[in-house]
């Protein structure tokens, strides 16, 4: 592998790491927000 191969590998690994973290964070955030709104909906139905 030449110099540009190693450069591509380094930048590729970083892009995959950052991209994966970004996607997983978005997914976790969406999941938690959905769980919270379901709990609050459920709570407001039971409250009376």
């Amino acid at each position, binding site marked *: *592998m030449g*110099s*540009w191969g*190693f*450069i591509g*590998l*380094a*930048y590729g*690994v*970083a892009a995959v*790491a*950052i991209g994966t*973290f*970004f996607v997983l*964070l*978005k997914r*976790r*955030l969406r999941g*938690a*927000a959905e*769980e*919270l709104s379901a*709990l*609050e909906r459920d*709570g407001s139905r039971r409250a009376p």
Partner: protein
Amino acid sequence: MERATRIAPSIGAIAAVILAVGLYLGLVAAPPDAVMGELQRIMYLHVPSIVTAYLAFSVVFCASILYLWKRDLRFDAVAVSSAEIGVVFTGITLATGSIWGKPTWGVWWTWDARLTLTAILFTIYVGYLMLRSFAEDPQAGARYGAVLAIIGFLDIPLNHFAVYWWRTLHQPSSLLRAGGPSVARAMLVPLLVNMLGLMLLYLYFLVRRVQLERVRHRIIEVRLRRGRRG
């Protein structure tokens, strides 16, 4: 925090633009190094990554002290969020350093003081995150985590000065050194642009990650309230 959450998309967009400019400067505009040739371009990613990781762990350190002092879970939310992002950037540092090491030193890894201390830093904060996720009592997890984060932070000055205190393969710092950076201007600019871009990306991730932590706290509150009501 509400304001930070509102401006998060703008921070993310600015980070993306700066990183795109930094990529162009680092991969196209910067000249090849006289000794390392084109491989030097990996440094435009490797150095900003470790500086951003240091920033993330410094935030963990400060937030952990504040948590132990005030016992306010908002500080703990910042600490655990910043630690997670710091681990990602330390992982990138280790990976890009290893990829640079293979063609330069002939090995993917060597037990050099700087490399070993960076691996220890990574392991300490992975351990911190594991401790946090396995703790059954969130308050106890936050307390033990804060102590571990404060002790673990000592690895950073040790890591920075390792290249001066011991004989290492890793070159001394050319950026964070007494007397200012020793890098040529044509190479310093892409380095600083990428550093700014990654720090803004860190800030974006931090705001979003803290937002997640707040939603999780709210879920726990709602469940506890419901549990009390029976």
